[in-house]
């Protein structure tokens, strides 16, 4: 749980039992996914989008800041990965680092302009900046390939010096992404439960109180946004590898909306795991319901509306209440309170 008290045993751990169970289950995915009518690439997408949604939730759930243009940083990471391998050096580690750094710098630039705001003003400014980046990606034909995208991006081998792994096969790439995801999730868990993460969660609840305790609210809000953008960009770099291309679509407003839907439906406002649950549900719904009807988004949209209106704790919140015997009412109240802080401007 994001707001677990500091005396919670899991909050002090780097790897929790829940993580181990999740990783073990995910490690078996290539063995059975085809038998249930799905395909390994879906597993890759779920892991990459989960990392992206967890990074996004640093801003939405942990900091309580409504960012609706986060697709820009995912996309910048994808382009940076491709451009790095074309124009700088075709090294996996350097190109992934370039993806994170480019998106982090873009996030830091935006954070300079928006971190004195919150609530609806913050939301609109994130949309505006997201649209600027999206437009730049479409219009910069020479650099990004415009609407056609940046094609022929390669899955560079994972070279450790003494041994190198080819990642062209989807199963090999799945396991690579799973390892990266496992490291990423442990890192994000630690971040959320670090003193820095506690300050961010405190700022979500009351900026005024945090400032009067001596915390630089602006710096914390700016830095969490830049960090979130950097990890989103890193996930974008992985996505470019997965797709073998980078497209401007992921930077558009409606695609930025997807990650918001995933996070809220999953329960990101009250649970660390909410974004992962939301991504799993969204992408499997896309494939399973999408196989039956083109209008799958209509049904997911209705689910989103129902969650926002009646179940702000999301699916992970409901599951957590059942598993840990928390009061569902208390979690719902937290979800409602988080919604109010997100859009009401906070204190």
């Amino acid at each position, binding site marked *: 749980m994001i707001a677990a008290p500091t005396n919670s045993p899991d909050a002090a751990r780097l790897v929790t039992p829940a993580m181990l169970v999740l990783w073990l289950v995910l490690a078996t995915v290539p063995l059975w996914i085809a038998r249930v009518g799905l395909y390994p690439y879906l597993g890759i997408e779920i892991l990459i989008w989960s990392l992206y949604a967890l990074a996004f939730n640093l801003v939405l759930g942990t900091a309580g800041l409504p960012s609706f243009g986060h697709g820009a940083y995912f996309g910048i990471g994808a382009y940076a990965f491709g451009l790095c391998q074309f124009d700088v050096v075709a090294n996996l580690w350097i190109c992934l680092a370039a993806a994170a750094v480019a998106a982090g710098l873009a996030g830091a630039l935006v954070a300079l302009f928006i971190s004195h705001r919150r609530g609806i003003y913050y939301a609109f400014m994130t949309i505006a900046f997201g649209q600027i980046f999206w437009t730049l990606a479409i219009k910069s034909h020479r650099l990004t390939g415009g609407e056609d995208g940046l094609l022929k991006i390669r899955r560079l081998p994972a070279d450790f010096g003494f041994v190198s792994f080819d990642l062209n096969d989807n199963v090999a790439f799945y396991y690579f992404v799973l390892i990266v995801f496992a490291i990423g999730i442990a890192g994000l868990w630690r971040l959320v439960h*670090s003193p820095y993460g506690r300050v961010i969660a405190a700022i979500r609840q009351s900026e005024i109180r945090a400032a009067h*305790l001596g915390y630089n609210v602006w710096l914390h809000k700016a830095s969490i946004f830049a960090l979130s953008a950097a990890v989103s960009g890193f996930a974008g770099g992985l996505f470019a590898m997965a797709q073998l291309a980078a497209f401007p679509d992921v930077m558009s407003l409606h695609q930025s909306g997807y990650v918001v839907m995933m996070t809220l439906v999953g329960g990101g406002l009250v649970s660390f795991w909410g974004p992962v649950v939301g991504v799993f549900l969204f992408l499997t719904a896309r494939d399973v319901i999408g196989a039956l009807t083109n209008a799958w988004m209509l049904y997911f949209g209705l689910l989103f509306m129902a969650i926002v209106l009646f179940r702000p704790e999301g699916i992970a919140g409901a599951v957590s209440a059942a598993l840990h015997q928390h009061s569902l009412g208390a979690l719902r109240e937290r979800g409602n309170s988080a919604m109010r802080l997100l859009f009401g401007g906070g204190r």
Partner: protein
Amino acid sequence: MSMIEATGVHVRFGDRVVLESVDLAVAEGEFHGVMGPNGAGKTTFFNVLTGRVKPSRGAIRLGGEDVTGLSVHRIAAKGVARSFQIMTLFDEFSASDNVMMGLPEFRARGLDLAHAAAGNRQFAAKASEGLAAVGLAEKADVRAKDLSYGDRRALEIAVALAQEPRVLCLDEPTSGLGSDGVQRLTALVARLKGKLTIVAIEHDMEFLFSLADRISVIHWGQVVARGTPHELQQNEWVRRSNLGRFA
């Protein structure tokens, strides 16, 4: 030398002058009360002292250092803690975590991403001490929002004290408390008296007159009277005003 000193503080919101040439000097260890009718500018004056409002003119000195115009967090880090008229706590955090957030040691690690906040015995011990000092030792794990009104007031003071402040600013600390709560708070503040510099805005004259070393009366943005409780009781302006009925 005064611990906190305001000189010629002038605040204007648009056309409206809210504070006009307000002077205040509070000695180290003094309990200084601030009273006055609603809308007199008392809370604005507190906001100036704590950095939330920048004065149009005038200066604020803390321990002789000019802190005029510094941001809220920098003034807080220099040792000015405050409570709020409308209680402001981290409602989702436990009482213990609220106090922990106030600790200077925790603040020094505010940008630490690599270590867990949990399991730090030093933080936990200091938070327990802070809660015990205000009578909340048994409620360390209770979420702030689930505490009673009186306990939340006490927690606000525990959080402020955790900052190890040089100056404690209390904005209407008895507001909304029943007679038992006021008694408990009076006893708590009496224990603090002399140990740190306290500036308190208060409407409860019994509270203020029983504890304050000196009191300033603000009206229409100006200090209209100042003195010991006894001197104020003799002050003609105070006697003629509504405030005099309680004094």
